[in-house]
């Protein structure tokens, strides 16, 4: 049921103001090209969901696309803070940002519940931390057999999930490999989904460690070569660690940030 369409069209079809949008990719395969297209299309009021917000959410937040952020770790990995995220939380710039804060285990399980058609997930998590006092979506649950108290989180079922993968075939079957994170869960949990890919090929040759998402479980596939930069697509590109470090300087200041976005995102067209 997947249809292969240009990126701008895919984002236009799938993302609407006010939607909840999950863009996943655990360090690897982060869908930057799609995120930039959302910024260009000027969407507002989004609930952004992502385990590790990373630079792409720093950009979306800094450009005022987000009303709410559901996350578990909002930093620039190995570098430091996400300055736009901090500025939004600490100073409400460019707009107030509501946050719903979890642990990695909590969000990962919330996606699993979403993908599984269950209303909640159970884990050994959060107990004794201050997170449940700040995140009402973390509740105790009692084992009906042992009486032990554990923790429940509600399923995440985003309006749209967006992930990046290495390849798709012409029918829209998708193949990704390397660190595959929670991408399968995010796509299966979502009402609609977009997978951007490095390339579209005639046939998906089997590969060690590859996850295949069948086309009938995806809404749109778009070709977006280099679409995960400055993250990477194993087998196609390498992580641009220098950019991650440079971002600290770019994002620290509002004007520098806006100028960079203007030049590097708003002026550019979607890949195709």
């Amino acid at each position, binding site marked *: 049921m997947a249809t292969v369409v240009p990126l701008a069209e895919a984002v236009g079809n799938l993302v609407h103001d006010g939607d909840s949008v999950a863009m996943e990719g655990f360090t690897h395969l982060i869908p930057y090209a799609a995120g930039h297209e959302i910024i260009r299309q000027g969407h507002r009021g989004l609930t952004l969901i992502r385990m590790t917000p990373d630079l792409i959410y720093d950009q979306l937040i800094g450009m005022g696309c987000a009303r709410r952020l559901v*996350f578990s770790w909002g930093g620039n*990995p190995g570098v430091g*803070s996400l300055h736009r995220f901090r500025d939004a939380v*600490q100073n409400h710039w460019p707009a107030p940002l509501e946050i719903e*804060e979890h642990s990695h285990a909590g969000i*990962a399980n919330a996606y699993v519940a979403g993908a599984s058609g269950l209303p909640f997930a159970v884990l050994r998590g959060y*107990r*004794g931390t201050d997170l449940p006092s700040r995140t009402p979506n973390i509740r105790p649950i009692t084992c009906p057999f042992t009486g032990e108290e554990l923790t429940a989180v509600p399923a995440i079922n985003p309006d749209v999930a967006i992930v990046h993968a290495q390849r798709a075939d012409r029918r829209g079957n998708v193949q990704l490999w390397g660190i595959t994170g929670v991408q399968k869960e995010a796509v299966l949990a979502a009402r609609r989904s977009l997978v951007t890919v490095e390339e579209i090929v005639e046939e998906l040759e089997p590969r060690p460690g590859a996850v295949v998402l069948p086309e009938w479980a995806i809404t749109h596939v778009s070709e977006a070569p280099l679409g995960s930069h400055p993250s990477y697509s194993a087998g196609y590109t390498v992580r641009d*660690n220098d950019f991650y470090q440079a971002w600290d300087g770019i994002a620290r200041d509002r004007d520098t940030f806006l100028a960079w976005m203007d030049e590097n995102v708003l002026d550019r067209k979607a890949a195709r």
Partner: protein
Amino acid sequence: MTVSPSASSASTASSGADAYTADEMMTVAAARRLRSGSCFVGIGLPSVAANLARRTHAPDLVLIYESGTIGAKPGRPPLSIGDGELAETADAVVSVPEIFNYWLQPGRIGVGFLGAAQIDRFANINTTVIGPYDDPKVRLPGAGGAPEIAASCREVTVIVRQSPRTFVERVDFVTSVGFGSGPGDRERLGLRGSGPRTVITDLGVLEPDPATCELVLTHLHPGVTLDRVRAATGWDLTVAPGLRETEPPTARELAALRALTGGRG
């Protein structure tokens, strides 16, 4: 091997043949805590220390990153927990839900290695926020994998630079539980791991008192004075009866560390 002159602060390198920085002492001391077995590694100093252990005394140490790589053998410490080399060199790569559910949660993993923005007398850790949650002074990255690493690894090692701002009487936010408010809390909460066994800083080593669960100073790094550690601690620090001096880094440890970091840190 000559005993090196001591590092006098985190940022000042000492001089001499086996000169080393306080951060190097900290990383080496952390690496030494890791024997064979498995280690759930956070990014940054924990990753450097775990990789150092693997290259020195613990070649069979299994490194597990939350990105889903089991048995990764990176050539250099990765910048992020999802670097490509982690997957390429791993024994197995699994999904993120699987790494947390099948591997971390059941208590299969020996040592969890954590950093901290604040740590308190009961080894509770804050990486969420400094100041009030709703009007933060500094908004930090948040929990990541830490709450469940702290709960489920058989034991936890914390690496953190010591200062009155980080070693506080009570953390502003409990992101990860050490010993809660004291003895019996972990059991009451159903946390299965034994909690922080060691807190390694740039000044020394702290360990929980078995009776009170309070962190007490057990080791001073070479050249560090007790007064300096007290001044860097935001609570009235107890010193263990048999306070010892940490063995300084060996030449082999330093060489391996510097090969890993390319001279950084």
